[in-house]
């Protein structure tokens, strides 16, 4: 189900608990993490998750708002986007 795949990108200053706290929200909303990558780029922590939204127990907007709220609290930049965007833009 490509339709329900999301890419969640989280960037900011590295600190304790980023992965745990964001993963906690995904679990709460029944959004499955299918892949996760993290790296440090120019002193910035970057975490990219691919998640499946098909069994989520809320609307997209509600889920996105929860992630953005946590991003604000932890001073991290958060992007939640449908994966189709990247597939379409970067593959022929």
């Amino acid at each position: 189900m490509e339709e329900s795949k999301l890419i969640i990108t989280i960037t900011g200053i590295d600190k304790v608990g980023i992965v745990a706290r964001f993963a906690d929200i995904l679990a709460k909303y029944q959004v499955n993490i299918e892949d996760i990558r993290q790296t440090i780029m120019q002193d910035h922590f970057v975490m990219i998750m691919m998640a499946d939204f098909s069994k989520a127990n809320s609307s997209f907007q509600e889920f996105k708002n929860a992630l953005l709220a946590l991003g604000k609290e932890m001073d991290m930049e958060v992007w939640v986007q449908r994966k189709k965007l990247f597939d379409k833009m970067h593959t022929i």
Partner: protein
Amino acid sequence: MSGITSQYILETIDMIKLHHLDIRTVTLSLSLRDCISTDIKETGDKIYDKILKYAAKLSPVADQIEEEYSIPIINKRIAVTPISIIGESCTDKDYVYLAQVLDKAAKAVNVDFIGGYSALVEKGFTKGDTALIESLPEALKVTDRVCSSINVATSKAGINMDAVLKMGQIVKQTATTTADRDGIGAAKLVVFCNTPNDNPFMAGAFHGYGEPEYNLNVGVSGPGVVRAAVEALPDDVEFGDLASKIKKIAYKITSTGELIGREMAQRLNIPFGVIDLSLAPTPAIGDSVANILEAMGLEKCGTHGTTAALAMLNDAVKKGGIMASSHVGGLSGAFIPVSEDAGMIEAVKSGSLTFDKLEAMTSVCSVGLDMIAIPGNTSPETISGIIADEMAIGMINKKTTAVRVIPVPGKDVGDYAVYGGLLGEAPIIPVNKYSCSKFVNRGGRIPAPIHSLNN
């Protein structure tokens, strides 16, 4: 993540966040041909009801998709059948009333602009065409979101010089009736040669005769993204490699438009029309076509080499973009609207970019002399001469060209016209002081050109 690397994801986010990648417009194109009646009120009611029926979900669905993809959709718009036709059967040809109906409907469904207050008169005027054109100064004064386009020339029909003369007067009057807002009425009025039927951009959008009942056309934008890509290349990269880089970026920009357009069309349950590949600048710093030309190696946009740089840019954007979409149409090229492009404004202020150079540039790009503020005391005949020149470029080169100039009431060279929003602001640019009055007053039509011996 099945082929999508972290680098691609971060690149996409940078394109949106730092370089202003956005969908400039999603435009619902809608036929109003079934709204024709002999009673103007009944026609108005039918128009209003039909727009509300078909466009009610346009804005909410666009907002929803914007959230899900985190791609800004800057404008939601509607394009309708040229209103000159729709009002023509009415006993009382009160076109201003129809313009007000369009404005009211646009506001009710929360779209930014509605285009199609238009007439196609390249070979002559019908009664409806004449009435609509005469109504323009008042119609564009009493409405906020209505846009108008008048097609006065084609490569097959030649140039209707009676219409060119008339439109010089109408542009002047329209600016005068909106003198309190720097002549903004004229910013919503464009005169065309070879106008396309499926253009999603304003002020020229309308629903053409050969179009289906309704469909969705999308205009993308991305000068900032192209500029960043060109700037990232070493200064001595040769032209083949430079063009190749632009093509790749244009592919990415257009793919995004195609995705968003198809997604919207599917959710609205209407057919997808075309992607317009145009590079449309915004007044935001860096989101400028002029800045791309400067990144290619020009000290300032407007200097020698500018036309060549623009020709290459325009062609590379089309080549890259066309592969990303199954249906491309509209204007599809780089736009050079002066007031809407911070780099163009700067180039005019510095004296590098002149009216004549802008005219030369329009021969190799989309779409024409666009959003250029000229002195308020410019005569209607001079405006007609400006239109005639631009129509000639389009007619001979078999391309779309257009004129959207604003003779800013009470202002002169050195002053500024300020419109705000996407329309931006513009320094008043000087025009040639010698008269073309005798020429434009001859009347009749410039015959259609020969389509061989292309020299």
